[in-house]
């Protein structure tokens, strides 16, 4: 029962419009630092573009998709209009205004600090204010998800919360807590410097705060994808979800162990002790667990669907899957990219192996494969699946959807595999210019060119995606019926209270955060003389 269609569509369109712009920037960046670009250009433009691309793709786009999908889940899974629609519009406008406020100084070249901020670099204060507005807007969503969850539970004390809503609230709580790190960094460290009240900044502490956000944010991006795996995919291919409880446990594991692991981004940083790096490494290893559970459950669900369709044999059932169904295709391609990306991630999280690829293009390749590949391809699937229900018009350009999904997959592989490879060769990330005539760098030229071609394949796929959605707005009117989620093989009538509530899991999440982050942060706060002079972007030095 989707009643806030305009709200949800507004979120999706803003998300995808921003995505389209950032995608063009991304393709330009791939081109301009590749050997294809034989002209000189101002490297400052590159850093502006990277900042805009990262801020939009990292903060604006996934946040809006999670919000839109969250509202859609609230109304369709709980089968009632959501509470607080007016607040939801407030949140939307905060995100929209925040995105504009942040992007103006970036386009003017006043805040080329990249989306990870990198103190002691400090840009125009309005960039950070814009990011804060985006986060505050998303916190309204967090609150609304929680309120709707609690209200429904109160009205239905004897029914388990539908899986989609349970997972959605898990994502909301995770984001609510993980955004606190960057918020502390911006409000108490960067903004006072950006407004000129202070001229020095504790860059080490700022990096620790940012790592608090930086890794768990990935799981916030990931959760809509996982919700789609569990609640859209089995229904779309005509099967059933293998296990409802397993799904809940996966999302709970994300809530608990996604947080206390961010210091693995700081393996090369001196301000955190080696012991804490090890502890974070251990928990990073644990976060593979919910993903392995998910891969198992989803493959099992696919097998159920296939055998219902007459699939036979130990592996023969794979061919009986409905491969022409875009959701089937997107999920399969997503899992392949998740597999490769996850394998790369295991290298990043290990202290010794990380040393060989830290701060190289390997890292950029890794997060594009996981986020841009495995996660975003499921955002496409979510949009395709929801669109007829939101617009009230048929979306039947299936051939185009399949082409789009294949192009995204191929483009992402062609982009990121060579990217990983040049990282192993030692190519540093965050650089605008590489002299490919230098014999030491020349062997990387071919891989970088391949990568750039992949970037343009992705751009074509992105244009196709927007075309499909745009045509969907003007298609034939048709009533799509109620939006439904996948039904598990065994529909739970009663479930343990632990799998139906978050109190315990939030307590563990916050407890583990204190254990793993408490000492490093307290120590850096207490140490004297840890501040360094701020480097103002665009200022004369």
């Amino acid at each position, binding site marked *: 029962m989707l009643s806030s269609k305009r709200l949800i569509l507004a979120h999706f369109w803003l998300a995808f419009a921003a995505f389209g712009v950032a995608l063009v920037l991304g393709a330009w960046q791939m081109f301009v630092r590749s050997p294809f670009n034989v002209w000189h250009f101002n490297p400052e433009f590159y850093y502006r573009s990277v900042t805009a691309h990262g801020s939009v793709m990292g903060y604006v786009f996934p946040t809006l998709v999670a919000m839109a999908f969250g509202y859609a889940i609230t109304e369709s899974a709980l089968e009632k209009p959501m509470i607080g629609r007016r607040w939801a519009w407030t949140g939307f406008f905060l995100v929209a205004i925040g995105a504009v406020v942040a992007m103006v100084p970036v386009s003017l070249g006043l805040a080329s600090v990249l989306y990870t901020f990198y103190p002691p670099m400090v840009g125009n204060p309005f960039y950070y204010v814009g990011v804060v507005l985006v986060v505050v807007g998303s916190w309204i969503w967090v609150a609304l998800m929680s309120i709707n969850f609690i209200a429904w539970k109160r009205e239905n004390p004897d029914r*388990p919360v539908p899986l989609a809503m349970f997972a959605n609230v898990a994502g909301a709580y995770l984001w609510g807590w993980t955004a606190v790190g960057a918020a502390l960094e911006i409000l108490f460290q960067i903004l006072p410097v950006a407004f000129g009240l202070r001229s020095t900044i504790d860059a080490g502490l700022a990096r620790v705060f940012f790592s608090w956000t930086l890794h768990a944010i990935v799981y916030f991006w990931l959760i809509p994808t996982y919700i789609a795996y569990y609640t859209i995919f089995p229904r779309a291919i005509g099967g059933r979800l293998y296990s409802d409880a397993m799904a809940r446990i996966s999302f709970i594991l994300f809530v608990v162990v996604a947080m206390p692991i961010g210091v693995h981004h700081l393996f090369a940083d001196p301000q955190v*002790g080696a*012991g*804490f790096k090890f502890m974070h490494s*251990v*928990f990073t290893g644990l976060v593979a667990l919910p993903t392995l559970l998910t891969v198992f459950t989803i493959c099992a669900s696919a097998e159920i669907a296939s055998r219902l369709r007459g699939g036979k044999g130990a592996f023969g059932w794979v061919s009986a899957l409905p491969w022409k169904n875009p959701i089937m295709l997107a999920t399969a391609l997503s899992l392949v990219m998740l597999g490769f990306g996850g394998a790369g991630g295991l290298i990043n999280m290990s202290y010794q192996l990380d040393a060989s690829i830290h701060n190289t293009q390997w890292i950029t390749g890794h997060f594009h494969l996981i986020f841009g590949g495995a996660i975003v391809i499921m955002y496409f699937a979510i949009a395709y699946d929801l669109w007829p229900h939101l617009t009230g018009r048929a979306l039947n350009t299936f051939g185009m959807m399949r082409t789009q999904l294949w192009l995204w997959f191929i483009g992402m592989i062609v982009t990121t595999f060579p990217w990983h490879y040049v990282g192993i060769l030692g190519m540093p990330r965050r650089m605008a210019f590489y002299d490919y005539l230098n014999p*030491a760098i020349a062997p990387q030229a071919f891989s970088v060119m391949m990568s750039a071609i992949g970037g343009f394949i992705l751009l074509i796929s992105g244009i196709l995606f927007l075309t499909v959605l745009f045509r969907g707005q003007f298609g034939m009117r048709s009533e799509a019926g109620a939006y439904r989620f996948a039904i598990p093989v065994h529909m739970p009538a*009663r*479930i343990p209270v632990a799998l139906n509530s978050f109190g315990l899991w939030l307590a563990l999440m916050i407890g583990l955060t204190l254990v*793993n982050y408490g000492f490093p942060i307290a120590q850096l706060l207490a140490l004297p003389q840890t501040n360094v002079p701020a480097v103002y972007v665009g200022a004369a030095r």
Partner: protein
Amino acid sequence: MSEQKLFSFRNSWFSTSVGTTVAIAIASALAGLIWLPLAQPDLKLAGIWDAICSAAGIPRAPVSASVQQPDFKTSNVVLTPDTIGRKDAVSIGRGATLAQRCAICHGPQGVSDANSPNLAGQFAEVTYKELHDFKTGARVNVVMSPFAANMSDQDMKDVAAYYAYLPRVPSSKADEKVPPPPIVVTGAPMRNIPPCGSCHGELDYKAGSPWLGGQSAVYIKAQLQAFAAGARRNDISQQMRNIARHMTAEEIDQVARYYEAQP
């Protein structure tokens, strides 16, 4: 569902999840804070508490009390935004008077062809630091050391302010057609040499690094050779010595000729 009590050790979900989480946290802490540091032979730890402090990243004074002191003087100049102070007319005027004794080598307008550094337009921090280093003996030169020996701190600041005030004059050997050698533009990352311009202007400027444009090639070459040989050692943390040691003789020539030809 609501009749079950969640926060109770009778609830197996609670006891299992809390128990497992605490066990993993304790095991990883024991391994990361005690076992792994003690397993490292190079860490030289006094005991378990020492291991924990080391792994937690608590800064400690070095265990061995005998810090090796160099047998020569090192620069003790600290450059902050307030080092030079205000470059007002009085300071510049005093500097101009004091600078008359410098003119025989450095030129009456701060420019000369005597293969001594051209000081006109040089950053005040640079002139001040070098004078200070000559005075303390961190840098030694038969001509300059006696001059600096009797200068007060304010004298050095005034002279520095005066030369910074003078306009830069293109050298007589200026030639914009000289192409920048690779060592200037990109450095040599494999030898840990950054591009010259990343400290000496053009790309970026770090306080205390001199402006090199228009300096005598003979002077630049002599200084780089002195850095490489360890004869000059007033660079902080061996910045220039480490660079010069890894430069080839040919690169030193190229750099010297290139900067001499620059404005």
